[in-house]
């Protein structure tokens, strides 16, 4: 890898730029995108940097074309990514589904903003979290990561590429306008310290290879177009040869495998960060930018004698059901802080058992004040004390 | 050098995948030498595959092959005409 792809050193850069640099550092050499606030900087950075490292940048005519172009590039054997925000994310949904159905690795960065519809183009939000999970039609599982800082934008974009190749699935980086536009210290390690994603190529020759026959972890190996394997790839329900098989039995087999591929491997996919959990009576669950507010609120709560802890979801999907279920039995109350009208809190409620769940919500535009989240923690602590 | 009139069609010059035929009649209609006819036979789907008019002279133009949407009809290569296959121990498809 050339020197220019890994800008080793300390930088002061915003989250969008850091996402682009993360992709470049781990080998992304194709970007197709469309301008949309607040994600445009990712595309602009890629437009400047990809020609420097021998990659290709193309501005497509819309987000639908962008999503398809990165799928095509992935099938040509290249690590590819795109970036967008809410309205573009909606446009990409059908073809994220194509990526899931055809098991095409790629990375989609969503720098969230206030929605719905055109909403608040220049202001933050976390309103696409459920859409990340359920936005495309049909049954599937997806992997989504939530960076809380420009450093994490760099690190988690790399993580996204690693996961997408490992599990042959599009991986979503659910950033937001605040993280995307804030400038912070980003440390880029030396090239030999950057983990590189590995495309799982077939180990047998073309006469023996069965295109969608899974390995033990339920993930099939993936040749590239032009390798001579002459495979057929379709968005239709297909059998292990890749041939369309539009019947209930084949559908059951395929959809279950696509879902189990992620579910069965979820324990290897989860990335969580816990603070103050050893003695916590109230646990805050948060992700992305609101996790930073929640952390301050946790400190303030501790100063007021409330034993508060923070579970930060770095992987938001798959959701860590077991951890939350266990956590609910270990604490007296749960608090979820997010910048939407209640999305991840629904997942928490599903696994909270009889432990009460409180939420500190705002629909976007501004992040909560730590005091707002503290107020909810205090309410939770009071309710917990009564029970 | 033989002319087209010297070529004698034998029925085993046309290879028809009868079960793949969907009876569209393109080959029958557009054969310039009127070699093909609608046959009396049915295939499993109820279509009549083409039959051969033994009196007609196939010139091996291969238009039937190109016009068949089903990849269901083939004519042998010119070099296998006039019993060359039997004499030279050649297989179908070899030149």
């Amino acid at each position, binding site marked *: 890898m050339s020197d220019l792809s890994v800008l080793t050193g300390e930088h002061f850069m915003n989250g969008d730029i850091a996402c682009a640099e993360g992709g470049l550092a781990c080998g992304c050499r194709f970007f197709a995108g469309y301008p949309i606030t607040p994600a445009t900087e990712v595309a602009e950075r890629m437009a400047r940097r990809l020609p420097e490292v021998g990659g290709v940048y193309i501005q497509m005519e819309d987000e639908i074309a962008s999503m398809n172009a990165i799928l095509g590039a992935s099938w040509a054997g290249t690590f590819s990514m795109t970036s967008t925000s809410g309205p573009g994310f909606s446009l990409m949904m059908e073809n994220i589904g194509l990526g899931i159905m055809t098991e095409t690795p790629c990375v989609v960065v969503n720098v969230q903003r206030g929605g719905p519809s055109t909403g608040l183009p220049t202001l933050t939000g976390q309103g696409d979290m459920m859409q990340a999970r359920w936005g495309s039609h049909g049954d599937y599982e997806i992997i989504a990561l939530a960076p809380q800082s420009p450093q994490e934008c760099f690190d988690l974009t790399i993580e996204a590429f690693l996961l997408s190749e490992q599990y042959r699935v599009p991986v979503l980086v659910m950033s937001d306008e605040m993280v995307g536009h804030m400038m912070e210290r980003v440390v880029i390690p030396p090239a030999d310290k950057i983990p590189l994603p590995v495309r799982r190529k077939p180990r047998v020759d073309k006469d023996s290879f069965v295109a969608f026959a899974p390995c033990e972890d339920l993930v099939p190996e993936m040749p590239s177009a032009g390798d001579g394997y002459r495979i057929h790839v379709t968005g239709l329900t297909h059998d292990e040869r890749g041939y369309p098989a539009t019947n209930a039995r084949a559908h059951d087999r395929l959809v279950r495998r696509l879902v189990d591929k992620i579910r069965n491997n979820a324990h290897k996919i989860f990335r969580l960060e816990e603070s103050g959990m050893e003695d916590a009576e109230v646990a805050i669950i948060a992700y992305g930018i609101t996790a930073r507010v929640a952390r301050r609120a946790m400190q303030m709560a501790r100063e007021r004698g409330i034993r508060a802890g923070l579970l930060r979801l770095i992987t938001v999907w798959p959701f860590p059901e077991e951890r939350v279920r266990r956590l609910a039995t270990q604490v007296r109350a749960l608090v979820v802080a997010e910048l939407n009208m209640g999305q991840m809190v629904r997942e928490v409620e599903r696994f909270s058992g009889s432990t009460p769940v409180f939420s500190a919500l705002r629909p976007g535009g501004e992040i909560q004040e730590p005091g707002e989240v503290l107020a909810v923690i205090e309410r939770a602590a009071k309710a917990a004390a009564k029970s | 050098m033989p002319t087209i009139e010297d070529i004698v069609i034998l029925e085993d010059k046309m290879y028809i995948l009868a079960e793949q035929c969907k009876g569209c009649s393109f080959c029958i209609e557009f054969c310039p030498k009127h070699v093909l006819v609608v046959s009396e036979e049915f295939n499993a789907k109820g279509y009549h595959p083409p039959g051969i008019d033994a009196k007609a002279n196939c010139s091996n133009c291969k238009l039937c092959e*190109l016009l068949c949407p089903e*990849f269901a009809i083939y004519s042998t290569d010119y070099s296998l005409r006039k019993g060359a296959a039997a004499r030279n121990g050649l297989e179908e498809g070899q030149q």
Partner: protein
Amino acid sequence: MRATAIEQYVRTDRLPHIWCSGCGIGIVMRAMIEALSQCDVRLDDVVIVSGIGCSGRVAGYAKMDSFHTTHGRAIPFATGLKLANPKLKVIVFSGDGDLFAIGGNHFIHAARRNMDMTVICVNNFIYGMTGGQAGSTTPPHARTTTTPYGNFEPPFNLPHLAMACGAVYVARWTTYHVVQLIQAMKEAIAKRGFSFVEAISPCPTVFGSRNEIPTGLAAMKFFKQNSERIRDGFDVAEAGIELGGKIKVGRFCDRDRPTFQDRLVRMEHEVVSAERTMEG
């Protein structure tokens, strides 16, 4: 091409295919593989990308690396393939609805950019797979399931559209004109840049049956009788198709423009290295 050679190009284990009796898609597919067999191209480098519809099913029968993508999106998918691996010979094979209605935007931009690919459009004037709805190429007055009183929308003139957007090679033939169709496809495949071949095809089941062309054979005879080969200097704006009218066929243009990749490479050499020299 020898009979046994078909097996190199077609997934014969999936035949007979799903297309109706009298449908022309099989002819267009056959023409494409004849053209490929006569081109100087490695079959391992050929990629077929299709969309949704009857014509889109070609990808499933072609024994090359093939991608059956979502409705209208074959062209951007193909763009990604080609740009990531320029060695690939990318052929988009799809229908009129997929390429020009839902896919219209992608067509015009790929032509504008002169993306190096060949687009083969089977134009049967209808949405066949879904039972016969009108599309953007349906001729005026045609009866379809969504134009029960006769189509009153003007259709696209595809060669005109393609040329206006910048395609460097544009040809149209019908499924009757197989020899010319093969030749056009050969030229299109060999051509650098965005090449477009329109193949007029019967659809007896859902188009012809409602418009007095009850069989594929009737349509093919019509194509034979009513096609007019264009002469040099023909104004492509006159290439529109009406029910029962003449079909203009031939090669509408064959010109040269820099491709997207030509421009990309030039930019990389001239601009990027110059900037690096300045910085260094």
